[in-house]
């Protein structure tokens, strides 16, 4: 490693190379152990704290290793970051978690982009080809993460419109921006281009790409987008680590990148979407014909039209096995506490209550679980799609709260619609179905839900879920 001529090696570091690498390895293993604990509910909190401690260790190690301790200017910045971050974390509401994560992704991306930019200027890195290319890549991915995250956060916070925004020559511009990013990578390996061009052009191209990519994302694709941005923020960190030769940055950054990638895959599978389609904006075009599934179901149901409409209170009182299906509608109506109250009443009445959580319900992976946990729902009652899907046949009652696409039976039959082939919760197999949705409009995917047309077994409670649930609860007298 003799040809690393970073300035830091000119001064005598307080820690020897060997000690540094050993400590860095231990810190990496500590982070991995923390993540391992995160997979168990009972140990997760400890795991998170262990990871945090490892990062703090990494900061101290870096301060010592690069002789930064006496440079007082870094401390006010650290302090400002700590205060801002802590206040944000304390104030954020659980419902705002997706935009909080998006925002934090963006701030990490910004930092990586700046580190990449500095490395390109030769600050903290050598002038070799490897470092320069890595620095440019970090600059690009960091900027893309920043821009994409800010737009995603704006959409989630409802400052920006939820609907995908698409320019007429969208794909061409996205493709061009990507191409420019690649060309700049190649150019950065030579010394033929001035520094200012090397810095500005990748930033502009990455900003454009990030902007167009996320503007074109609709609400329901958010879980995929956030996971992807999460991955990118890690990758940006890892690559900036390659540029400046920092082993901890590389190891921890790539762990984050891998985790985000895995979550992205899980989300894509849960929606039957390919990642390429999401990025390039082959958005699920809302409003595609859904006639086939719909009409067949209506015809079917005509025969059953005479079925007696049962009193919802009677159904609730008699139900012994109840499955609740929460969706993003529950989140926007803040109805999780009413849901919990309803579940409590049913349980007091001797019913078994479980929650069926679709992987993409809500706006980020695990969104529903967090909201229900906030309402003190026991996590043992939260069931994943594969575990609970067979239970709908035997359950007495399925209660849908603000969910639509994730239980739309059209996903099975309606070929050519955006949700075709998407794994769904088999709510339609249940004897009785209560649906607490705002209206009968199709969900994000734009496919009509045949359940709304069905006469037998389905009871609709339209309006704000928190209010309709409250009305039902106040009228509810379980025997």
């Amino acid at each position, binding site marked *: 490693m003799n040809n690393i001529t970073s300035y830091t090696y000119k001064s005598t570091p307080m820690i020897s190379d060997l000690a540094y690498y050993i400590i860095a390895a231990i810190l990496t293993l500590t982070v991995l152990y923390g993540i391992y604990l995160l997979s168990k509910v009972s140990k997760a*909190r400890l795991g998170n704290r262990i990871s945090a401690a490892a*990062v703090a260790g990494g900061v101290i190690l870096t301060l010592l290793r690069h002789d930064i301790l006496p440079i007082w200017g870094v401390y006010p910045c650290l302090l400002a970051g700590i205060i801002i*971050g802590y206040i944000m974390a304390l104030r954020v509401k659980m419902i705002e978690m997706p935009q909080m994560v998006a925002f934090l992704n963006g701030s990490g991306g910004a930092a990586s982009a*700046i580190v990449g930019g500095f490395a390109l200027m030769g600050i903290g890195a050598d002038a070799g080809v490897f470092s320069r290319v890595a620095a440019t890549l970090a600059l690009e991915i960091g900027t893309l993460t920043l821009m994409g995250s800010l737009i995603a956060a704006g959409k989630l916070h409802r400052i920006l419109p939820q609907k995908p925004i698409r320019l007429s020559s969208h794909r061409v511009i996205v493709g061009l921006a990507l191409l420019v990013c690649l060309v700049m990578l190649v150019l950065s390996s030579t010394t033929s281009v001035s520094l200012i061009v090397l810095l500005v052009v990748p930033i502009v191209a990455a900003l454009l790409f990030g902007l167009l990519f996320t503007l074109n994302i609709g609400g329901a694709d958010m879980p995929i987008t956030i*996971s992807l941005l999460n991955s990118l923020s890690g990758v940006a960190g890892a690559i900036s680590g390659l540029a400046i030769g920092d082993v901890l940055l590389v190891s921890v950054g790539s762990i984050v990148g891998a985790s985000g990638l895995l979550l992205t895959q899980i989300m894509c599978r849960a929606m039957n979407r390919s990642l390429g389609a999401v990025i390039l904006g082959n958005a699920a075009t809302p409003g595609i014909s859904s006639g086939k599934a719909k009409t067949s179901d209506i015809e079917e149901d005509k025969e059953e039209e005479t079925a007696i409409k049962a009193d919802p209170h009677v159904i609730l009182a008699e139900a012994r096995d109840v499955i609740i299906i929460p969706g993003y509608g529950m989140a926007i109506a803040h109805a999780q506490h009413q849901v919990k109250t309803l579940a409590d009443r049913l349980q007091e009445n001797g019913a078994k209550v479980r929650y069926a959580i679709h992987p993409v319900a809500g706006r980020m992976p*695990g969104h529903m679980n967090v909201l229900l946990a906030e309402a003190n729902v026991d996590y043992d009652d939260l069931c994943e799609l594969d575990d609970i899907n067979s239970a709908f046949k035997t359950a007495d009652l399925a209660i849908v709260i603000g969910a639509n696409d994730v239980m739309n039976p059209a996903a099975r039959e309606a070929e050519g619609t955006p949700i075709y082939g998407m794994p769904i919760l088999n709510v339609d197999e249940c004897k009785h179905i209560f649906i607490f949705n705002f209206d009968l409009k199709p969900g994000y995917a734009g496919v009509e839900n045949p359940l709304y047309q069905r006469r037998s077994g389905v009871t609709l409670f339209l309006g704000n879920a928190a209010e309709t649930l409250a009305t039902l609860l106040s009228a509810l007298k379980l025997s």
Partner: protein
Amino acid sequence: MSSLQIILLGVFIISTLVGYFLINNVPSLLHTPLMSGMNALSGITLLGALVAAAVAFKGESTWLSGIFGATAIITATVNIIGGFAVTDRMLKMFARKGDKHE
């Protein structure tokens, strides 16, 4: 490429693989805290920000790099502290029934 850079590439690949398989074990119930925890970890780029900013603060560079250096430290620290604190808050809610709730 120097030997350090080859080692770094190796670390990049190994960490990616290990991370991928480790995270495969996390139940979907915990995906939000997992994501915000990972998010906090991505603020590790603070280490790079510290190194770069230190150079800028030493007065070897222009005031503009000083501002960028300070920005990098602040945004990365916000990422780390905000991410870990919010993850801790969420995980606290996943307490078992009978445990003390918030």
